[in-house]
């Protein structure tokens, strides 16, 4: 692709300068002026032109591609690799109104040592909690590489003023969260007020930096895969480090066709800009089988570069236990009962 897209760098700490014609003298770009996110986001009409200019998504075609990928048969060594890798990609999540500090400490204990019988099991990528419990998690995870993610911006509905949302973010970051999972304003997106959504993401990004920003699209409320593609690009253009499917509070949450479209967006965005951004699938992923299928999809749609917790995550709570049970099955040939893994 010859188009060059200059976007806000998602990770200031990486010091990667966006590609520009000036520092690549070997290439000629006659006829393709550098295109920047600032141009696209200049006003709502420009943003709309860009997002609606993306190729459409054929629902039936996307479903059949996703179903085709699901027939991959992952066995023995490949399965073992996939299980271990999946564990390392989990954002171990508890987002209940009934959460307590004790429950979060228990969650953190499992995050750091998922499998007591196998000390070399990797730790999960992060724990994900509400902002008021961030401090508890930070305390429990001190000294470990496990990240602390917090949902913010009036999660899960996102229906609050920008000031309130930013205060929510500030609060979580101040308490020590190094990853922020924000929700977009789906109302504004569906009404076509793209600049509003873009600016909100940008504001949250500025507020939470250097914490990583995951932008929740809540695809279950977007209705079509065309919307999913546009929302993905919007979030990536605005500087989100990750695009994330769902809050987990709306059904359907992560589905294979939605994951397919988002992975494709991340891939195309990387090709266009040279910046690889992450994808997080959340909501409803409970079994090893589903997790392995999604890894196959990551591998074949985005590419094996994305097979790292830096670029791919599962937001899940019960998935971890199923991965552990399947791991034991692989090693011993027999299933453990559910009482051999911690429920909480």
């Amino acid at each position, binding site marked *: 692709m010859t188009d060059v897209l200059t976007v806000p760098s998602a990770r200031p700490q990486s010091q990667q300068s966006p590609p520009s014609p000036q*520092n690549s003298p070997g290439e000629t770009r006659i006829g393709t002026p550098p295109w920047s996110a600032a141009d696209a986001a200049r006003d709502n009409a420009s943003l709309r032109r860009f997002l609606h200019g993306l190729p459409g998504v054929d629902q039936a075609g996307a479903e059949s591609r996703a179903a085709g990928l699901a027939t991959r048969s992952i066995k023995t060594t490949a399965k073992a690799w996939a299980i271990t890798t999946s564990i390392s990609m989990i954002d171990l999540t508890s987002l209940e109104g009934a959460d307590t500090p004790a429950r979060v400490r228990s969650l953190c204990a499992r995050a750091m040592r998922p499998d007591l019988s196998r000390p070399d099991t990797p730790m999960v990528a992060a724990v994900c909690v509400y902002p008021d419990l961030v401090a508890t998690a930070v305390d429990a995870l001190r000294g470990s590489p496990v990240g602390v993610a917090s949902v913010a911006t009036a999660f899960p509905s996102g229906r609050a003023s920008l000031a309130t949302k930013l205060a929510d973010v500030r609060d979580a970051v101040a308490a020590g969260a190094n990853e922020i999972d924000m929700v977009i304003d789906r109302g504004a997106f569906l009404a076509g007020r793209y600049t509003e959504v873009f600016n909100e993401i940008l504001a949250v990004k500025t507020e939470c930096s250097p914490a990583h920003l995951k932008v929740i699209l809540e695809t279950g409320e977007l209705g079509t895969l065309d919307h999913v593609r546009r929302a993905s690009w919007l979030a990536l253009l605005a500087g989100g480090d990750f695009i994330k499917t769902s809050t987990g509070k709306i059904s359907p949450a992560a589905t294979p066709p939605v994951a397919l479209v988002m992975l494709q967006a991340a891939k195309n965005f990387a090709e266009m800009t040279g910046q690889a951004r992450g994808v997080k699938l959340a909501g409803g992923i409970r079994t090893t089988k589903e997790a392995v299928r999604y890894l*196959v999809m990551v591998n074949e749609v985005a590419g094996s570069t994305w097979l790292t917790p830096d670029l791919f995550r599962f937001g899940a709570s019960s998935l971890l236990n199923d991965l552990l049970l399947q791991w034991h099955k692989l090693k011993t040939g027999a299933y453990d009962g559910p009482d051999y893994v911690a429920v909480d």
Partner: protein
Amino acid sequence: MTRQRISRGQAAAQTAGPAESGAPAAVPAGTDPFAYAPAPESRATARLRPSYQVFVDGRFRDGRGESIKSINPADEEPLAEVSEAGPADVEDAIAAARRAFEGPWSAMPAAQRGKYLFRIARYIQERARELAVLETLDNGKPIKESRDFDIPAAAAHFFYYAGWADKLGYAGLGPDPRPLGVAGQVIPWNFPLLMAAWKIAPALATGNTVVLKPAETTPLTALVLAEIMADADLPPGVVNILPGGPSIGEALVSHRGIDKIAFTGSTEVGKLIQRGAAGTSKRLTLELGGKAANIVFDDAPLDQAVEGIVTGIFFNQGQVCCAGSRLLVQESIADEVVSALQRRLTTLRLGDPLDKNTDVGAINSAAQLAKIRQLTESGETEGATRWSPPCRIPRRGYWFAPTIFTGVSQAHRIAREEIFGPVLSVLTFRTPAEAVEKANNTAYGLSAGIWTEKGSRILSVAAQLRAGVVWANTFNRFDPAAPFGGYKESGYGREGGRHGLEAYVDV
């Protein structure tokens, strides 16, 4: 070309000099962190027997032709001995079919015929795994295709036509359509069991009896189908199956004792059969070659179009008469589509057809492989640009890597002749009128594809295409309820759907 991987560092290196620190470590080329372990389906499932016989008058018996070895195209190892039919067996089979037609099969109430068809469909489903593995061994196609397409579709055809058996009066073919008599059917090697189902199911539903000759390189599943017919207690002689070569096919279709010829295969042989049938009372349907255009407009859903192009030409190693072997892509998006297609092709897995993760299997025979090679060489000689993804070709067996030719013109052989292999010719167009003109500029007319998000364009282009099947935003999808057949040198007559009944009845 090594497999393309884009990380922040690498992509930056392509456009903006050396990658800087801070980028995630790129996966070194050649090592795949998520290498899929082998997942082969068990060969024992096929219940291969050392020898197979002809099926005449409800019994298996040694044929009076030669005995040949059917081989596995994936490794050239012999699978089984097949006792082929001789001319005397053709006589016997046609006589048996005639007796059955004039005897029990005609006298039977239509609902009873339907019951037999339903039973055959169920038995196919019950033995689906066995049939899938056997089909893969004999044909070379990936197990995921025989398992997920060939066998289920074969069962679906029997189910579909079973339903028609006692409702023929409502098929729009007159109040009381009558069967023709004995049908002589000759089928190809690309979908051995499915083609047998396409031929046998409508013939039996309409009250005809059948003598079927499977292709010489792929007789095994048809002979298991014969076993299913016997297990289903089908009256002797209603279905006879004669494995054999071209001479048996010729003896069958030129025999005076048959009332109907149904042939699927090459246009060349189709013409000979049509010549032979001229002036006789035999009814004839031909399903022959194709050189389908898959037309991608600039407003197409591109990711799905790329999938459709892949399905269109690499499904069954391109050995499909309706394969989308000519990609007509709008010039404004041609580079983008070709590079997306190349990237997608690097994820195709070529190898052991029994492995459940194999996407591209073996070519069916040495002869077919030679033909593909010869035509692709002509493509290079004529100046088209050839590209294949890096893939390891097994040492033994008949293999051909997925291949794309760009810079192809309408005048090149690879744009005009049917290759019947995993070879795609890419041509470009600028306006819808040009696309239609190029798509129709072929001696064939079996199928075509249209990719656009614009509904009105789908309708207007589809109406102008001279092709029997036009797919919109999909390709190579089949349903027993949908008629299938060609225009021009792709043959005539329709198979499948209500239209498929017409070829087997007098109205």
